[in-house]
């Protein structure tokens, strides 16, 4: 989740009210953000990804002043018509088709405002913009640009001076050498030409979604801004522009259209009072609902709710119900256990597993708890080739496959416990993978100077007696076990596992100087044969 740093004094200035720290923190959190830290100067806040409108000081202040009922209700933003235009070259269609833009005038760019704008831009990139893939935003000094503009593409040999550079670079050089180029080169790697914004003098504005040009850079003397947004999804780029221009308008700036956008047209949605009350368990009347939604910056006329253009998260009536709940205050809801009569039932397989664990602990065995993931190297120590399902993107080579059987886990446990007291008699119940099929298995290992085939067969025998099941053992060859001391375990003629003495070769693979006798069985098969 994105974290933003907010200048506390500036936030309080924007809200126009001095709030004590604990109340400020509580109100921010009950609005649906998480306060990570707060001191005199700064507040660090986690913003949920559904609310990109809260990724700036201005947006947060706006929501907060409504929420604490200082300035509730829908805010109208004036959008000025203009002749600012741009052309879209059809070549961008295959690469980065979505585009929207706006002009901002009369902005006072003090240091704090500049930081806030840059933070908003960066956080929109990482969240709403999916790391610039879906949406990327560029901000320029309007007075360095001559309209009309063109959004087009240029070959990789095309040159311009990127931000923070003193000389021209080709587009491919930018991707190879510029820090931002290197970070985002993967977004363009499949294309022969790259997106470029040009003005009427053929001055480059930027190479979306990578970098702006040095010539159109915003400085502390900048008074007017051009803002573009490009990406893969037209709705998403328009939303981003709406969020940014509203935040800047909150600073007193004026919004001008480019290509007749933005309009900041608000969404209208019908709200059914009964639906809201039923879901919330409340009995709110019309005027209460109206008041609550106004605290969330909305307007209500009859049963029609007007939703500000920057609220990109309202998709369904249910989203309005949540806003009512937040406005009402989660802390103000009664907590009720309803009379919903249902009969409890434990999963039969879980009951079976629990019973088996109880029987085995009765023999004095200790249960262990291994990871479901293991490595091919670990499996190879058993000297017995078993196919294991591989993880495509393991972050750790020690855990790159799904375990096909449990005994390797138990052997690893014994290896790790060589310095502890013997006998070490252990068992584990867990999910194993036979290709993509999931099987619940049980493995038991006895490790002590005196263990042998008889000892492990006694456990197996007694377990089956407790389960009232018959079994047979047939001789078999298995590389993990001593020849002539290994058998397959059959229930009603079907093989459900192996029992035997672990071969000295395997023991030495695990650095063990103590014999191990063990068995492993398929609990799913076993459960099928119960009753």
């Amino acid at each position: 989740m994105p974290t933003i740093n907010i200048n506390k004094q500036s936030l309080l200035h924007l809200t126009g009210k001095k709030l004590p720290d604990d109340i400020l923190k509580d109100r921010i959190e009950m609005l649906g953000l998480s306060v990570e830290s707060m001191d005199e100067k700064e507040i660090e806040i986690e913003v949920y990804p559904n609310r990109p409108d809260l990724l700036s000081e201005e947006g947060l202040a706006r929501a907060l002043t409504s929420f604490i009922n200082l300035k509730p209700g829908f805010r109208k933003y004036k959008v000025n018509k203009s002749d600012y235009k741009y052309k879209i070259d059809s070549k961008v269609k295959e690469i980065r088709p979505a585009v929207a833009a706006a002009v901002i005038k009369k902005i006072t760019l003090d240091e704090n405002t500049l930081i806030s704008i840059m933070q908003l831009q960066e956080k929109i990139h990482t969240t709403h913009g999916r790391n610039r893939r879906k949406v990327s935003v560029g901000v320029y000094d309007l007075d360095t640009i001559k309209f009309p503009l063109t959004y087009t593409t240029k070959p990789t040999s095309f040159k311009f001076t990127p931000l923070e550079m003193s000389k021209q670079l080709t587009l491919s050089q930018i991707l190879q050498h510029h820090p931002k180029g290197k970070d985002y080169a993967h977004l363009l790697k499949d294309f022969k030409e790259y997106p470029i914004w040009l003005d009427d003098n053929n001055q480059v504005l930027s190479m979306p979604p990578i970098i702006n040009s040095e010539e159109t850079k915003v400085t502390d003397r900048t008074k007017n801004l051009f803002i573009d947004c490009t990406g893969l999804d037209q709705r998403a780029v328009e939303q981003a522009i709406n969020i940014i221009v509203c935040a800047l308008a909150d600073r007193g700036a004026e919004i001008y259209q480019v290509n007749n956008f933005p309009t900041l047209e608000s969404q209208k949605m019908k709200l059914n009072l009964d639906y809201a009350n039923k879901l919330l368990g409340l009995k709110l009347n019309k005027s209460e609902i109206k008041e609550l939604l106004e605290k969330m910056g909305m307007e209500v006329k009859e049963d029609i709710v007007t939703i500000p253009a920057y609220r990109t998260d309202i998709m369904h009536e249910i989203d309005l119900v949540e806003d009512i709940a937040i406005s009402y205050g989660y802390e103000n809801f009664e907590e009720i256990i309803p009379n919903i009569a249902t009969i409890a039932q434990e999963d039969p397989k879980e009951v079976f597993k629990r019973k088996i664990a109880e029987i085995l602990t009765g023999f004095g065995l200790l249960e262990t708890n291994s990871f479901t993931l293991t490595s091919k190297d670990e499996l190879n120590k058993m000297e017995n080739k078993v196919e294991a399902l591989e993880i495509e993107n393991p972050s750790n080579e020690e855990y790159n496959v799904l375990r096909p059987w449990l005994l390797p886990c138990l052997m690893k446990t014994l290896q790790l416990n060589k310095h502890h007291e013997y006998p070490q008699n252990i068992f584990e119940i867990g999910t194993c993978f036979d290709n993509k099929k999931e099987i619940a298995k049980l493995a038991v290992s006895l490790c002590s100077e005196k263990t042998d085939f008889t000892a492990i067969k006694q456990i197996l025998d007694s377990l089956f007696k407790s389960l009232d099941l018959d079994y047979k053992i047939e001789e078999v060859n298995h590389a993990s076990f001593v020849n002539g001391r290994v058998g397959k375990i059959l229930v009603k003629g079907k093989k459900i596992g192996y029992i035997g003495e672990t071969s000295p070769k395997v023991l030495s693979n695990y650095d063990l100087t103590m014999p191990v006798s063990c068995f492993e069985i398929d609990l799913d098969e076993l459960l099928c044969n119960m009753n």
Partner: protein
Amino acid sequence: MDKLIQSLHPLERTVLPTLKIHKDLDSIIKASKLSEVEVMRALQWLENKNILKINQTLKEIIELDKHGEIYIKKGLPEKHFLKVLEKPLTLNEIQEKAKLDKDELNSCIGILKRDNLIKLGKKISITKEGKDYLKTETNQEKFLKSLPLEKSKLTKEQESTYKELKQRKQLIQTEIKKLRTIELTPLGKKLITQKLETDLLETITTSMLKTKSWKNKKFRRFDIKGVVPKIYPGKKHFVQQSIEYIKKIWLDMGFKEMQGPLLESAFWNFDALFVPQDHPAREMQDTFFIKGTRELPDKAKEVKQAHENSWKYKWNPELAKKLVLRTHTTAVSARTLANLKKSDLPAKFFSVGKVFRNEAVDWKHSFEFTQVEGIVIDPNANFQHLLGFLRAYYKKLGFDRIKFLPAYFPYTEMSVEVRVYNKEKKQWVEAGGAGIFRPEVVKPLLGIDIPVLAWGQGMDRSILDYYGIKDLRDLHKNDLKQIRDMKVWLKCQQ
């Protein structure tokens, strides 16, 4: 005093009389005719009863070394050298007859020449002094025979012999030994003057019971406060114990257990839960992917519609077919919803299961967790009921103070973050997520849009806190000492 006498073990009874005369361990062992282990045990017990004190001193003891052991039986090499010199012989002849190796031969020549016992020439002959020497037992021989000796108690003469022998190769060695001596306490001094009754019964035997021979006799008193050797019970793993407890909480509240696969299609893990296909959680760095695909269920059509209508993008069935290790047990809830019929309602389900995240492992990160999941499906369920169930659950887990905050999950609306107050750390800690499933989740899966209360919590944090473990890796470390010594999970639900 009587009680004390009655509590004496047979070994103690055997050792005690020898203490009248003997003070050091070796002589006590000889006098008692017991093994060293038995005597030590008896002395230890007696010390525990405040009858005696065992004093330990360290002593440097001179003993025979490898060559010394051989020479003490076969004689020193210089004697062999002289013995064969009945007539003058060459070196080679001497070596052969006396059966000496090269080293021995050379050292013999040195010693014998120095003391003028032989005369060197083409052939070597014995002198008169040499013949006398052969007849007498030398100081070195005497010294070797008297070993072991305590170094601090050597006479002046022995001291110089010791120095000579130390020069010679592997004849003697010194070793530091613990010497135990016994000192009786006033109680002990009194005790050894008493008659030690010997007619006490030891173990209760079957023959004793059959013949009733125990009648009119006394049993030896046992030291019931003493430390006993450890034994270890068979045990369920402590993680399993806590899982069983949590399952019982939900069973007690009338919930039915639901299950689902660990290897899940992206469809059930994400798409059915209205997680858009470009959501960051679906990227490689967060989720484990497995090669292969799984076919989509019929309900995929409705799920596709929900995505396309609300998220406004083209839903790709291929991305939904991908295989992942489930990242949350909410995938199980999605499957359960899809299998429900209208006649099954109302229904309450829970699940406790493993989930996976693609993370490196350290003390506070892992890639495998246990999650607790619950859903309540009822046409009349509401937000207050959700909070009610959560309050009840956390109370049973031992958290009296909890609070609910607005949160966000793609599949719930209202969304809740539960925070619990940790008394030890004196702070609020994130404990889980909850909410009411969005209509975009419920309608495609269940066919109708009714409230489904849902929640999911990672359990591992509570397990660590309960057992006082700091490191997440300990849950899967399988350290048998830790598992053996771990207290049992015992929380009484209020």
